């Protein structure tokens, strides 16, 4: 396995330098086995484009998004203020994250608590790298013509109206992008938002991730792409419940890019 080049903010500080961006890994991206693969894929892309980026490492703490949405405003603001103290201490200006929940909270809910940063979702940053010519995608036969459907994460799509960026990236890879009947503004949630990730669902007649997986299966995809570690878990579980895990992969847009470039 290729060695990743990852420096912390503390490393940069010791060298007396500032990174171009701070990569906010997030709790899922740091600890969840599946999400860690997304983190590594994104870092491979950053390394390939020779981006001078930093992570907070052990100084990073949960953004508090999940506590806020569970109703615990105290815990959220405690987390937010601690993080803001660290971020402002390092004079961070730009943050990129692969988690739409962190993205939304950092971008929209931190400013009024004193944390003002230019926040981007990793797909937005990758698109920027492509546009600047810092990242070039070699044409690859790996994904060419593959049937891919994109599941919109609620906190990227409806919540922040980023609909086209991840789709544009997928199209750059030459995949055959098939839309589900509910997409973009009317996309169905995967079922994990609002702290649902951490609890059993209320009594009902179906799980939300299974319903969303059915939407995806209607497009007969080879790959279900998404841009959120929680969505990834939910859709993966959904595919398993339909016993399709051998024929359908659930992958993050960053993973698709990294795979296509043999990174």
């Amino acid at each position, binding site marked *: 396995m290729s060695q990743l080049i*990852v420096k*912390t903010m503390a490393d940069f500080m010791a060298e007396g330098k500032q990174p171009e961006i701070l990569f906010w*890994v997030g*709790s899922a991206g*740091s*600890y*969840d086995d599946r999400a*860690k693969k997304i*983190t590594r894929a994104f870092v491979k892309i950053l390394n390939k484009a020779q981006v001078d980026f930093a992570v907070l*490492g*052990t100084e*990073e*703490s*949960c953004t*508090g998004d*999940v*506590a*806020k*949405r*569970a*109703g*615990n*405003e*105290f*815990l959220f*603001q*405690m*987390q937010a*203020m601690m993080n803001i103290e660290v971020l402002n201490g390092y004079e961070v200006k730009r943050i990129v994250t692969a988690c739409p929940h962190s993205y*939304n909270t950092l*971008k*929209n*809910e931190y400013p*009024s*608590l004193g944390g003002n940063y230019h926040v981007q979702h990793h797909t937005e940053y990758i698109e920027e790298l492509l546009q600047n010519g810092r990242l070039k995608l070699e044409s690859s036969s790996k994904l060419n013509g593959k049937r891919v459907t994109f599941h919109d994460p*609620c*906190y990227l799509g*409806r*919540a*922040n*109206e980023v609909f086209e960026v991840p789709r544009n990236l997928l199209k750059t890879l030459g995949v055959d992008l098939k839309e589900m009947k509910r997409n973009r503004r*009317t996309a*169905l*949630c995967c079922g*994990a*938002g*609002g*702290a*649902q990730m*951490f*609890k059993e*669902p*209320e*009594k*009902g007649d*179906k*799980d*939300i991730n299974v*319903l*969303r997986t059915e939407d995806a299966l209607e497009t007969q995809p080879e790959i279900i792409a998404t841009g959120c570690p929680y969505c990834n878990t939910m859709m993966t579980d959904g595919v398993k419940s339909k016993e399709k895990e051998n024929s359908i992969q659930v992958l993050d847009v960053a993973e698709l890019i990294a795979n296509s470039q043999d990174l």
Partner: protein
Amino acid sequence: MNYLPNILFALSLILGIGYFAKNVKKLLRNIRLGHDVDVSDQKPQRWRNMMRIALGQSKMVNRPIAGFLHIIVYAGFIIINIEVLEIIIDGLFGTHRIMSGLGSFYGFLIGSFEVLALLVFVSVIIFWIRRNVIKLQRFWKPEMKGWPKNDGNFILYFEMVLMTLFLVMNATDVHFQEMNSGNIISQMIAPWIEGLSVGTLHTIERAAWWLHILGILVFLNYLYFSKHLHILLAFPNTYYGRVTPKGQFNNLEAVTNEVKMMMDPNVDPFAAPAEGAEATVPAKFGASDVMDLNWVQLLNAYTCTECGRCTSECPANQTGKKLSPRKIMMDTRDRLEEVGKNIDANKGEFKDDGKQLLGDYITNEELWACTTCNACVEACPVSIDPLSIIMEMRRYLVMEQSAAPMELNNMMTNIENNGAPWPYNQMDRLNWVNE
């Protein structure tokens, strides 16, 4: 001269408008029971939203069939009401079709009203069929039993009757038919009334005229008791609706102050309040009743016309959970009405009735089923935000009652202890680099 009809007309007008005004006052009083909220920002954007979403019906057409039919009824409502102006002048001054002096333009006006009236009639019939024959799922959810179901149908019957009266009034107006200008639809009714004497026709015409205007006044007063208030409130509601990204939830200021104190090493937590400082009542976190919500949320509740688009898009509802965003809005309004009646009965003071929105109307099970996905907010054609009410109530459950589901308490303990929702060591945050 006999002034009796004029006097009767003026009296009905005063009564009809007066009673409505009285209820509007009550409505405003109830809405003001909510907390204040600053909505003075982004005025140009707010005007644009109102023009586009309420006046322009931009979100209605996301569902093309209902949207198209609704635009007909909406346009009919606004345009045909120009005719009411003439009716009022005629009624007050004993004139007959005072504007007919406009000649062919008058014919053009009445002609378009007649065409619209027919279109409205047909659309309303289709609406009725969708509700009662096709039985669209969203009109048959548990919260749509009883009054809400009848209310929906009554409104449709009202509109059918009013449109019919308008056309009958025109058809039996001998003078108007003789003008033969603008009677595009009403002349088709003529064969059915052939052979009736001029006197009978006149009686029918007068009866239809009176029933039409009285019907409009009754309908106006029906609004306050009905979900149909949206025809008025959609405008302020879209103006005051959200202008920030949907993902952005407000940060509670009361909490910010306390957290800042906790994190400030110079604050003495046991310090007595400064001399002369008013004893501050600790803020209540979140909402357990309608008075804890803000007034825009209460305006939302009165604006809701129970179309159910929110509920039909809600992932929890679609998978059989109890949560229905529409029910959240209906419950909020029902409780607000109850509080309002309580205030009326107790000389302007609210007397504790041992009830509240949380528990007596909305259950914890509903609140915890929400994924905060914003599908309901996106779906609403008049910018209602059921999610913000759900969030306020969750805040109350967690911060005032420590009543979160156990798994969520575990998750929150993990964040407190290790800075992650999972029980992993913060020192392991960078392990992914070498795995």
